[in-house]
């Protein structure tokens, strides 16, 4: 029996490392990328040592961006597979959660169906980010080594790259907000930020299925 | 070149044969393009394959390698049969009217006087007929050209056999194309039209090369194209100073300025004998004594006196019976007779014929000195990289780093005989030195080594003038002055070669260069680029030998009365108002060039209409003594896949055949394909000067062999495949360039394939590849011994075997 203020592990050290290092990559690349994206953001350029520097930093972090998940995948392939399995495991609870979510989003009290270790919204996030990351990396590589690819592919890569980062960044807005400032998310945020653990009582409320799995039915 | 580069813009038709001018002499195309733009000139490209020149030509005529005499012979016949020749010019300015000795005849490919054992002609019967009663032995002439024994009729008869059908059967040229060429070029026989023949190594590198050029001259004389703007026969020369180096006499049979080198023939026993043998009775060459004595005075200074024949005996006399030319040299080296060699910027392991043999010959040397900017295949012939075993090669090799053309100063003579000064821009790289300094140092040290010797054989070295100033700039200046020559009584520089004397009071290293550096200054440095003539002569740019004349034989541009044949093609003319009556002059030759004539000899004077003053007859030789006949005759190359259909004589009867090891003759059953070699614009000669430059290596990185799609299909070769070309003498691996631009030839009903391979490559440099000359034979032209690089037999197959 777990006490309500006892803590249980939600995010492993590896996951936390990948999450935060990727977060850093994302923002560095977002801002350096903005310099490359449009002259509107030229005021950002001096931060990186000019547009050139922005290009350099962007490519440098792109290497980390690609390497970090690959290393994670290499070191702990099973946890990745489990994560993915979970993300793609959708049942009635998940759909109901998503349907009720907009009300929750603007602050109505709604009774959410029980969720797994990650809720349906987080599942979407878990699917979307690896997918976008993959396409960003792929299109980025094509753009980086453009001379080695057919022109149409490079042209397509630009569209893909831009769509991906735009969608991704939009999603980041939600994710960041929901994961930190949105009521009830603080626990998870601090877990991700700190030792990865959440209070059992919080878990029971927010991720009932997972809680039950870990702690057992009461 | 009888004319010069810029003069090409004055032409109405350019026949480019044996040359790929667009690649190897792009400036020819600069001016031909202008001629086409401005005057509607036609450009004809005759070549075994469609080249970059052909791409810009109005007519492209394919021609099998080694059939130039047939091709031009057919044009000569066309011009005569259709009365397209320039009648007045031919009658008066050539030996067409001269009557030939009764003993002369031509039968089945052989001229009279042939000795099959010696493979030599006795040329006695190739002479003008004279009236026995005439004490001057003046040749008999028939200005009507009707006498069947006159040169014109003999010429006509000789070339009658070269009818269009026969010619096309030999050359493989489609008949309609051939006729178009004939019609277009023959149109220049009009007085107001000029046609030029541009040729290069495609003409010269054959066993009957000299006769190829003879054929060009005959055609040009018939059309009246010699000595006029936009005319002439123009050898497009391949090296920046091959003209100058030849002027300086770097050939076994020459001294400076085309004075023949003496041999051990008894006629050359002493100076008097030399002068007697070398001085004709008429013409400008009657000045030969002045030239040779002035040269000896330049070389041996005060030691050269009238009493000692001006040191004439110091000159080496080669064995008249042996061959000292390039092939002969390497044959002797192969036999171990040559112990040491000094090589100045040459690379025979890539550029020499039968390169395998020439590389092998180098192993027999005791020592070699190589002076170059780069390591070459020749200077490293002993290395493992070359495929040799260094531990078995005794040769001591010295490599002296030479500096490049803009790290020193000096002059070079271009193909149009312009002697141009090159200024120094930077100091020599590293420890490299100019060849001038190296030669000076060598000479100085040799003289020191022999100092005090009393052996008569060393006397020439002790007497040789070599007291030049050591400082680079002064050394060059002094050598230039010596080349130009001095009046030794006043110590003043001579203004022109007409001032040379045969009494030892003048010195002149190279008589044709006299006038390049006078008391007025160094004329090779002149840079006034205003064209005061309107025909692009640029008389105040640099100095052209002889006497700054830009168009040789320009007396031909005026008629018998001294007026230009046409306003459009005028160069010089007789002006009766310009003479100085005080000196008894009736007038003067004036015009757009320095007259190639005695300026004050009036057209009405005796010999006033003999325009070829360098020739003993004063007229152009349609009939002329050559080793292999007075008229050009077609013979097949040494290696040919077909029989000669014009006569039973297959091969040039006077060409020297070397019966020696490593020089097998290939037969058509084993080697059915004609092979030829050539160059590309991106590389130069044996390649050291370009294969070492990354920008040029990038453009032409590998050796390739061009072949027709038909041959490639037959041999299962795809474009870009690695293939092997094999001849009786060696093998070469190259990349296949399968192209529409090469087509099989239909030779008298038989399909004959030809391939072409670049010869620039070797294993040293950025761009590397096999030297194509491993395939070529040691066989030379009957007159000049220039190797037959351009037509030999081979086979080609896919892959490396």
């Amino acid at each position: 029996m777990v006490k309500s203020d006892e803590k249980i592990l939600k995010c492993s050290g590896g996951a936390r490392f990948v999450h935060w290092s990727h977060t850093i990559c994302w923002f560095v690349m977002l801002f350096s990328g903005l310099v490359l994206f449009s002259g509107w953001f030229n005021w950002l350029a001096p931060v990186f040592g000019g547009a050139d520097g922005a290009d350099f930093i962007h490519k440098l972090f792109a290497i980390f961006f690609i390497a970090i998940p690959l290393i994670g995948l290499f070191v702990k392939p099973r946890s990745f597979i489990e994560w993915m399995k979970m993300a793609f495991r959708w049942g009635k609870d998940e759909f109901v959660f998503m349907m009720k979510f907009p009300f929750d989003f603007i602050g109505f009290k709604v009774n959410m169906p029980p969720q797994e270790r990650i809720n349906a919204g987080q599942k979407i996030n878990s699917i979307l980010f690896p997918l976008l990351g993959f396409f960003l990396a792929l299109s980025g590589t094509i753009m980086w080594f453009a001379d080695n690819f057919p022109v149409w592919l490079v042209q397509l890569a630009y569209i893909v790259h831009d769509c991906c980062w735009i969608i991704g960044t939009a999603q980041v807005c939600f994710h960041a907000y929901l994961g930190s400032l949105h009521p009830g998310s603080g626990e998870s945020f601090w877990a991700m930020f700190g030792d990865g653990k959440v209070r059992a009582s919080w878990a029971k409320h927010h991720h009932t299925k997972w809680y039950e799995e870990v702690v057992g039915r009461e | 070149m009888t004319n010069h580069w810029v003069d090409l813009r004055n032409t109405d038709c350019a026949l480019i044969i044996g040359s790929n001018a667009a690649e190897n002499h792009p400036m020819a195309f600069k001016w031909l393009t202008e001629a086409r733009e401005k005057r509607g000139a036609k450009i004809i490209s005759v070549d075994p394959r469609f080249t970059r020149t052909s791409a810009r030509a109005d007519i492209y005529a394919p021609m099998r390698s080694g059939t130039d005499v047939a091709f031009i012979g057919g044009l000569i016949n066309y011009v005569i049969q259709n009365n397209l020749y320039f009648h007045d010019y031919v009658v008066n300015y050539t030996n067409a009217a001269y009557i030939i000795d009764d003993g002369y005849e031509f039968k089945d490919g052989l001229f009279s006087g042939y000795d099959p054992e010696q493979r030599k002609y006795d040329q006695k019967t190739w002479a003008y007929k004279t009236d026995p009663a005439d004490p001057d032995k003046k040749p008999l002439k028939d200005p009507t050209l009707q006498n069947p024994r006159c040169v014109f009729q003999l010429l006509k008869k000789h070339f009658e056999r070269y009818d269009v059908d026969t010619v096309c059967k030999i050359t493989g040229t489609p008949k309609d194309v051939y006729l178009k060429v004939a019609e277009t070029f023959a149109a220049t026989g009009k007085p107001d039209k000029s046609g030029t023949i541009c040729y290069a190594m495609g003409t010269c590198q054959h066993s009957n090369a000299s006769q190829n050029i003879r054929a060009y001259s005959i055609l040009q004389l018939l059309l009246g194209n010699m000595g006029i703007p936009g005319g002439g026969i123009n050898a497009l020369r391949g090296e920046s100073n091959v003209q100058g180096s030849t002027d300086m006499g770097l050939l076994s049979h020459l001294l400076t300025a085309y004075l023949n080198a003496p041999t051990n023939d008894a006629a050359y026993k002493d100076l008097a004998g030399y002068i007697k043998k070398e001085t004709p009775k008429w013409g400008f060459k009657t000045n030969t004594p002045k030239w040779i004595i002035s040269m000896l005075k330049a070389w041996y200074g005060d030691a050269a006196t009238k009493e000692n024949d001006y040191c004439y005996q110091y000159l080496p006399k080669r064995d008249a019976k042996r061959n000292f030319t390039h092939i002969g040299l390497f044959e002797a080296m192969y036999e171990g007779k040559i112990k040491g060699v000094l090589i100045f910027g040459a690379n025979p392991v890539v550029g020499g014929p039968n390169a395998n043999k020439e590389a092998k010959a180098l192993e027999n040397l005791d020592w070699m000195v190589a002076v170059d900017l780069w390591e070459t295949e020749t200077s490293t012939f002993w290395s493992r990289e070359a495929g040799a075993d260094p531990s078995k090669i005794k040769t001591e090799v010295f490599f002296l780093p030479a500096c490049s053309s803009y790290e020193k100063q000096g002059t070079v003579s271009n193909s149009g005989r312009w002697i141009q000064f090159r200024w120094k821009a930077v100091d020599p790289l590293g420890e490299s030195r100019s060849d001038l300094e190296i030669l000076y140092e060598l000479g100085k040290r040799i003289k020191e080594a022999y100092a005090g010797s009393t052996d008569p054989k060393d006397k020439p070295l002790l007497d040789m003038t070599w007291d030049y100033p050591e400082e680079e700039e002064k050394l060059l200046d002094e050598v230039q002055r010596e080349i130009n020559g001095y009046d030794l009584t006043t110590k003043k520089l001579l203004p022109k070669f007409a001032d040379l004397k045969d009494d030892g009071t003048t010195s002149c290293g190279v008589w044709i260069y006299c006038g390049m550096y006078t008391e007025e200054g160094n004329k090779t440095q002149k840079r006034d680029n205003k064209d005061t003539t309107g025909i692009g002569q640029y008389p105040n740019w640099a100095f052209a030998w002889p006497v700054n004349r830009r168009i040789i034989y320009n007396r031909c541009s005026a008629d018998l009365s001294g007026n230009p044949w046409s306003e459009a093609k005028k160069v010089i003319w007789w002006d009766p108002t310009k003479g100085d009556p005080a000196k008894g002059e009736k007038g003067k030759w004036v015009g757009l060039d320095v007259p190639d004539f005695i300026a004050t000899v009036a057209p009405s004077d005796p010999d006033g209409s003999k325009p070829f003053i360098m020739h003993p007859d004063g007229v152009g030789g349609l009939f002329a003594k050559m080793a292999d006949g007075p008229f050009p005759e077609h013979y097949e190359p040494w290696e040919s896949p077909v029989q000669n259909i014009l006569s039973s004589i297959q091969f040039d009867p006077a060409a020297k055949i070397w019966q020696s090891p490593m020089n097998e003759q290939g037969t058509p059953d084993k080697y059915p394909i004609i092979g030829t070699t050539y160059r590309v614009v991106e590389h130069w000669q044996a390649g050291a000067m370009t294969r070492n430059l990354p920008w040029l290596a990038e453009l032409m990185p590998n050796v390739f062999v061009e072949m027709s799609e038909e041959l490639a299909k037959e041999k299962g070769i795809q474009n870009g495949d690695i293939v092997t070309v094999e001849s009786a003498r060696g093998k070469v691996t190259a990349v296949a360039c399968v192209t529409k631009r090469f087509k099989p030839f239909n030779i008298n009903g038989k399909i004959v394939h030809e391939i072409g391979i670049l010869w620039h490559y070797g294993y040293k440099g950025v761009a590397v590849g096999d030297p194509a000359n491993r395939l070529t034979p040691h066989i030379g032209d009957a007159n000049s011994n220039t190797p037959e690089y351009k037509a030999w037999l081979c086979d080609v197959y896919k892959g490396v075997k």
Partner: protein
Amino acid sequence: MRITRREFLKISSAAIATLPVLGFDLTPAMAQIGEFRIKNVKPVPTICPYCGCGCGLVVYAADGKVIATEGDPDHPINQGSTCAKGAALYQIYDNPRRMRKPLYRAPYSDHWEEKDWGWVLDRIVEKIKATRDKNFITKETVKVKDEKTGVESDVEINVNRTEAIATLGGAALDNEECYLYTKLARTLGVVYVEHQARL
């Protein structure tokens, strides 16, 4: 954005001058914008070392280094133009493959040794002298046939030659160099004097 060339040059150099915050060096970019590096450099005229056209080229050199080469616009033959070879003149000088020191390969050795000029020249002269002295023909007797009588007789003539030494090359040398070369070779008694004009 349409500006004049001169303005453009100013603007771009100003753009380059902005200080990089993170200290990335932008100088390679400057080289690419093509500052007019031959400004105030006097061109030295020369003649192309390749084919026989005799085109004029100019060399821009400063501080003992070649900085550019191109065609000589004043030259009547090429009027500033160059083919691929003439255009590559620059790399004859700026080239690590150029030989900078005299080298010597001893008999049976498989490598070069660097030597100084004095040593190689003396050694070459030694070789020339030894070979010449050992293989010199001073006189020869040849047969002469009297044209009138047909009688053959012997005549002794001075031939002063050595057939053991040969010289090759020279078409890439200057006239003055060729002149000293021919004078020295003939006076040594060398008859195997050949060069590219034969080929």
